[in-house]
């Protein structure tokens, strides 16, 4: 029994401390439990991370042959090191544009998702017929996979698709928006798709936030004659601050990765109008096969995202770790 749980008792009794490895030791078991995930992440995350940095110092491309030669050349020869990084920042406007575009796209879609999600959530505080069914229906877009979302909106945004038809009804004359062939319209199309896909998540988070707002201050304010807007601004919003931050951070983490929908919808086109950073990296690496160059671009992105996301996580770090 004693040896089975802890060795503490044995040494205090002056007995010889058992030297053998005891997997039930309180100091050993957490390490053992975490080992598989550490191995998985070191092999699949840290190693690629280092590898990416090393190849980004070369000019290797698949057609140049064996990867290891390029790998060794980093350590043996002193040429070309960091040339990709210089080039990226000074001579590649597409890269910086893609970064900027990703940020703009993310901010616009997150704000729209927030407003629509909060609006719908506030409706669901009231009583009405068929609430559960409508609730499930509103959540459906979230469960559909990104590729199918991209494809569905590709159908809808066709030149002769239903969206133009509906706009035509509203305008009383045929409308011929070339959604996916016009720079601005394509940008809007991507945002609409993204908003459609992820508003349900904001809706869910906001609903749980609204439900947690205490009722008594609201009743008191109503009795004292506060307007609805005043109640919302001074009672509901401050109470939901934590939830709103969580929603923005978590969605912000995901939205900068946006790839699948755009890939199916516009492939970054027309031109580079909807080319987000993921699309740009994909084109560099898997259409131009400039793997080393793409590696250096990706490495910068990795650094930026990790730093930014850690900054964004700071306010909710405690809540995430404690979790109760």
């Amino acid at each position: 029994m004693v040896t089975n749980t802890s060795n503490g008792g044995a040494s205090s009794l002056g007995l010889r401390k058992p030297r053998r490895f005891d997997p039930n030791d309180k100091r050993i078991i957490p390490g053992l439990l975490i080992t598989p995930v550490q191995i998985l992440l070191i092999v699949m995350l840290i190693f690629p991370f280092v590898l990416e940095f090393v190849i980004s110092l070369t000019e290797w491309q698949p057609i140049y042959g064996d990867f290891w030669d390029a790998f060794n050349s980093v350590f043996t020869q002193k040429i070309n090191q960091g040339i990709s990084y210089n080039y990226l920042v000074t001579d590649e406007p597409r890269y910086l544009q893609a970064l900027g575009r990703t940020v703009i796209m993310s901010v616009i879609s997150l704000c729209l998702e927030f407003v629509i999600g909060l609006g719908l959530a506030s409706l669901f505080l009231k009583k009405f017929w068929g609430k559960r069914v409508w609730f499930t229906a509103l959540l459906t877009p979230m469960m559909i996979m990104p590729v199918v979302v991209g494809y569905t909106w590709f159908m809808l945004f066709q030149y002769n698709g239903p969206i133009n038809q509906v706009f035509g009804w509203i305008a009383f004359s045929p409308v011929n928006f070339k959604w996916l062939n016009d720079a601005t319209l394509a940008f809007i199309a991507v945002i609409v798709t993204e908003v459609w896909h992820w508003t349900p998540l904001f809706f869910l988070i906001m609903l749980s936030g609204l439900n947690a707002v205490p009722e008594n201050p609201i009743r008191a304010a109503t009795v004292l004659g506060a307007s609805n807007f005043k109640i919302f601004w001074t009672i509901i919003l401050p109470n939901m601050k934590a939830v709103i931050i969580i929603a923005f951070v978590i969605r912000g983490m995901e939205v900068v990765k946006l790839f699948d929908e755009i890939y199916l919808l516009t492939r970054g086109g027309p031109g580079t109008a909807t080319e987000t950073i993921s699309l740009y990296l994909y084109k560099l690496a898997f259409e131009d096969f400039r793997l080393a160059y793409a590696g250096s671009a990706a490495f910068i992105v990795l650094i930026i995202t990790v730093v930014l996301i850690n900054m964004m996580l700071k306010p909710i770090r405690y809540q995430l770790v404690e979790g109760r």
Partner: protein
Amino acid sequence: MPDAKFTPFNMLALLAGLIFAIFPIFWMVSTSFKLRSEWVTSPPTWVSSAPTVDNYLTILAPQILLDRRGGTQQHGDEGFGGGKDDAAGGAIADFLNRSAWPGIKGSVIISISATILSIVVGLMAAISISRYRFGGNFTPFFILAGRMFPPIAIAIPFVIMFGPGIFDITDTYFGLIVAYAAVTVPFSTWMLKSFVDELPQEIEEAAMMDGYSRWRAHATVTVPLIKGGIIATTLFIFILNWSEFLFALVLTYTNVQTIPVTLNKYFSATEGTLYGVQAALAMVSIIPLIIVGFFIQKHLVRGLTLGAIKR
């Protein structure tokens, strides 16, 4: 504001939201049953005049369509160029011996294996973090780092790493399973951690007092008690794995296929876009997701917010 009335204006807003949410899904369902001639019309066809299942047959049982057209020897355009209303008309001919089954098989194998791997690994890590505070704040956020990277940035070194010379697992099930598990393990760890957190530690301590070892207490007390949470997490991770597109796109060629990649292949067909067939495949691929999602509806928000929001 629980006492507020549901005004007609609210009703309009709800209706608008519902139409926005449902219309694209309706359109996909409708397109998947359309005849070939109705795929691209001006003005668009909303509901097919003669619904057909040929689109589904093309991806699931092309043999039936082939038999209907008189067998493979006529495979070509000469015999039936005029059959415009036949969903298996000219353009599809090339797809008739390329059903979606390899993709479905690949998706099922990879998603299920990766989910199991991710859950087992994640559950162990979750117990370690939640019960023993392993690594303080650092380890949980180190695990989360896997979710912070844009997948494309990590896919570039994957291509080199999986290629010949290092691991040599490009275009194998194993390679994709490990890659998928690595990107979903942050979610499984964090979501399971939130479930373990909710379980009072005293229950395990009681079991240990009764003579269970720590491992046995975790395995026979903790795990069964958070069974519901584990099932919800498993289904949630399954959704994530089933939807994964980028890794399958860059790490597979011909041996291994998944549904998203198959869908993309029908998409880039040189014969023209096969709207109905793609819509049918999209339907087939999202039906499991919607069923699974319906079951774990109340846990979705917990999963997607890494356990920060419980309801």
